[in-house]
């Protein structure tokens, strides 16, 4: 934020010294009017978010204490039964575990891709502007388009690109079914999701890289620092605040991914790619156990909050906060 004044007027002593200055009464009423206007201007956004995020969350907690199954039916109060069922359900914990693998796999792959792309795009070379625009391409296409892309490219039953290529290169005799076994389905999905999301991280890293003062690198180069040393001792520390934010937001955004998985494997084969979001969706809208899905949402939300708190506690750079 550009303005750094604290919301409160300050300490009592502070206030006492400030009062006798010019327009004592006028300043106060002016300030009060400005505050009222401020609330007025942000009210539509805040109310909108309260109505569509906070209120549904509260409704979710309520729903999780009932036994509603089919959408639109009434339920009766059953206390914490749904929570007991969810917390003792191995399949739920397996889905949380898969979400963990999903987040980790995406984090590693996207960090590698985004870092290499951003480090290159931060340099000046002919065509760098075009390259900086092109790198966003895969991120702005709708998910369903990304799904069509990759289902087609990885198609095993004629056509596609990867299988004909593999066969021509002699790497395989028969088309590979990328989504037919659990491990390779999960790996393929992580690659596809990273394809879609790494540009987002690239752009943020690129913006941060371009803000690192270039004389730092020059001074280090004069002192004989190697490229690796410059990266380790200049780039990484300068990027720390950005990496912290990206780590936190990126984790939440990648946890939230549902459509790519649902539209390619629908959680299969035999639930091997059923992450927590897929399970919640399936439980609510395919198996019609609305209250159980609500309880899963609440438990998952608590796990994410716990993760965020731990992450902030241990990863937040000292100068922030």
């Amino acid at each position, binding site marked *: *934020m550009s303005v750094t004044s604290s*919301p409160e007027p300050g300490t009592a002593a502070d206030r006492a010294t400030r009062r006798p200055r010019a327009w004592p009464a006028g300043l106060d009423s002016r300030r009060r009017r*400005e505050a*009222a206007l401020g609330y007025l*201007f*942000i009210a539509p*956004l805040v109310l*909108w*978010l309260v109505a*569509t*995020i906070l209120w*549904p969350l509260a*409704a*979710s907690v309520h*729903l999780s204490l009932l036994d509603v199954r089919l*959408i639109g039916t009434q339920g009766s109060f059953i206390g914490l039964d749904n929570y007991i069922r969810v917390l003792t359900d191995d399949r739920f914990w397996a889905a949380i575990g898969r979400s963990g693998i999903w987040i980790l796999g995406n984090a590693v792959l996207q960090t590698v891709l985004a870092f*290499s792309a951003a480090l*290159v795009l931060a*340099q000046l*070379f002919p065509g760098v502007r075009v*390259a900086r*625009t*092109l790198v*966003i391409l*895969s991120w*702005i*296409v*709708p*998910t*369903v*388009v990304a*799904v*069509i*892309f*990759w289902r*087609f*490219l990885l198609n095993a039953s*004629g056509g596609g*690109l990867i299988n004909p*290529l593999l*066969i021509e290169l002699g790497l395989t005799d028969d088309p590979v079914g990328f989504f037919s076994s659990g491990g390779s389905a999960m790996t393929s999905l992580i690659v596809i999701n990273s*394809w879609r999301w790494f540009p*987002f991280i690239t*752009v*943020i890293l690129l*913006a941060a890289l371009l803000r690192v003062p270039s004389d730092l690198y*020059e001074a280090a*180069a004069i002192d004989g620092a190697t*490229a690796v040393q410059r990266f380790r001792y200049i780039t990484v520390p300068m990027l720390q605040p*950005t990496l912290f*934010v990206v780590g936190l*937001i990126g984790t*939440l955004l990648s*946890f*939230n991914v549902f459509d790519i998985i649902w539209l390619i494997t629908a959680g299969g084969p035999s639930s091997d790619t059923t992450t927590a979001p897929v399970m919640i*969706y399936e439980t609510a*809208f395919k198996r019609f156990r*609305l209250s159980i899905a*609500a309880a899963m949402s609440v438990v*998952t939300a608590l796990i994410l909050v716990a993760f965020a708190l731990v992450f902030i506690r241990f990863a937040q750079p000292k100068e922030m906060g």
Partner: protein
Amino acid sequence: MKRSPGTAIARTLVLAMLTLFIVVPFYWVVAGSFRAPAEIIAREVIWFPQSVTFEHYENLLRQSPFPTYLLNSLIVAAGTMLATVVVSTLAAYGFYRLRFPGREWLFRATLLAYAFPGVLLIVPMYGMMSGLGLIDNLLSLIIINVTFAAPFAVWMMKVFFQTIPKELEEVAELDGATRLQVLTRILLPLAAPGVAAIGIFAFVMSWTEYMFASILILSDGLRTLPVGLAGIIGQYQIDWGLLLAGATLVTVPVVVLFTLIGRYFIAGMTAGAVK
């Protein structure tokens, strides 16, 4: 600064990999949409189409419900755009130009809303929309899309408000203009590119949304493009030509719009993340 030859080689390698990873898939899909059906499912790699046909586009526009989906998507995207622009511009003015207790805290809370996992809301959102009688109504999609577009749009506006000198507003206020007049007569005309940028951003967000659209809309005639296209994928026999043509047509407007606002968008992202 001097670059070693090693850097140049590494750069070339990374650029080549990026090209393979991004440009080739796009080329393959767009080229595929013009190939004859037999060539699409050929078992060998045919880099340059041997046959050029528009039949998939004709099928898509004449025989499939694609035009209906397109219209629905346009309605939802336009509504989302309008509401996001109004709500976010007002909020950006409040956050960046006015002082009030709790401002910093509220601003951070809206940032959190951007990263909030929407999947945790689908169950209660269905209940809420059915309580409001908005199931199978495009309005429900507009409402939910604004929720996820508006917080980021507020960040994007920050950059634009920062470039406008405060003195300009102070002069107008001395002349007796109200705050709303200052916003609409002075700030908005100057921040017009920013308003356009958040409008397009909201449009694109709405254009790509699948999850909520898949549960809040029931009838085929009200489906949006992502759900409609996903329905075509799910059919018994996949018609790749039709899907590739559909994917190409859905992508074109997004790419065109984004090349227009790309740099504002990146500026907004930087403002939020690097802060």
